[in-house]
């Protein structure tokens, strides 16, 4: 008996991105194995000079792989004088 082909659906993951203050939180759907850079591209986020990208509160690189439920935050220091 010929074996049928088993199709495995590509897994998708959801990542939250919070970019600055205000109504800026969004959720993006990505393929499993996507990176921080791909998440930011999917979210349409651009990074200003001086802004820092963190993954779940930790410093990260653009090539870091993201997982389902991860939270990417983008902030810069705020100083007054």
């Amino acid at each position: 008996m010929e074996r049928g082909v088993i199709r495995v659906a590509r897994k998708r993951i959801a990542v939250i991105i919070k970019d600055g203050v205000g109504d800026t939180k969004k959720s993006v759907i990505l393929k499993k194995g996507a990176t921080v850079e791909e998440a930011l591209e999917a979210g349409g986020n651009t990074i200003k000079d001086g802004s820092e990208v963190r993954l779940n509160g930790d410093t990260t690189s653009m090539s870091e792989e993201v997982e389902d439920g991860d939270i990417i935050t983008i902030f810069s220091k705020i100083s007054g004088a």
Partner: protein
Amino acid sequence: MINLIDLSGLSKFVKRFDKEISGLASVVVLNPNLLLIDKYWMLNNISKPSFTEISSEALHKFFLEKIKKNEDVSNIRCWWHTHGRMSAFFSSWDLNTIEEFPDGTDWLLSVVFGNHNSVEARLDMFKPLRVEVPVRVVGRFLEKEYNVIDRVTALDVSWWKEGSLFKAIDGKGGD
């Protein structure tokens, strides 16, 4: 003209400090001409007589914790700081800071508190247009606690037509 009222007690809180302090606050847009400061958080890591700073690490942690708890962070869009023993004004440093908010920020309310109860506020919209708008801080800042529903209910009554803002809010009459 956009008007601003503080219902959070922030103005009373900042009077305790003669050095510069800073933080964020949540803003309720009651109508296109009236903003309310609802809650505030002091977040600065550095507090000096003429300088204050909130580190990016503090901001990441602050928002991360709230997002993890599924709290609504969309209204946290006010940066406030004090000028210690100086008057309230937006210094060139402050204006540069406003320009350096992350690219995702759509609009931002900034408030600076100075000595002798002086206060200045401005609204900066970054998207879709770059617009700077002066904000008038109306009346004295309230120091009584209200929940949001009470505030909105109070502000929805006929005070606006009568032109007596604080009479409707705290029953004491306003400036």
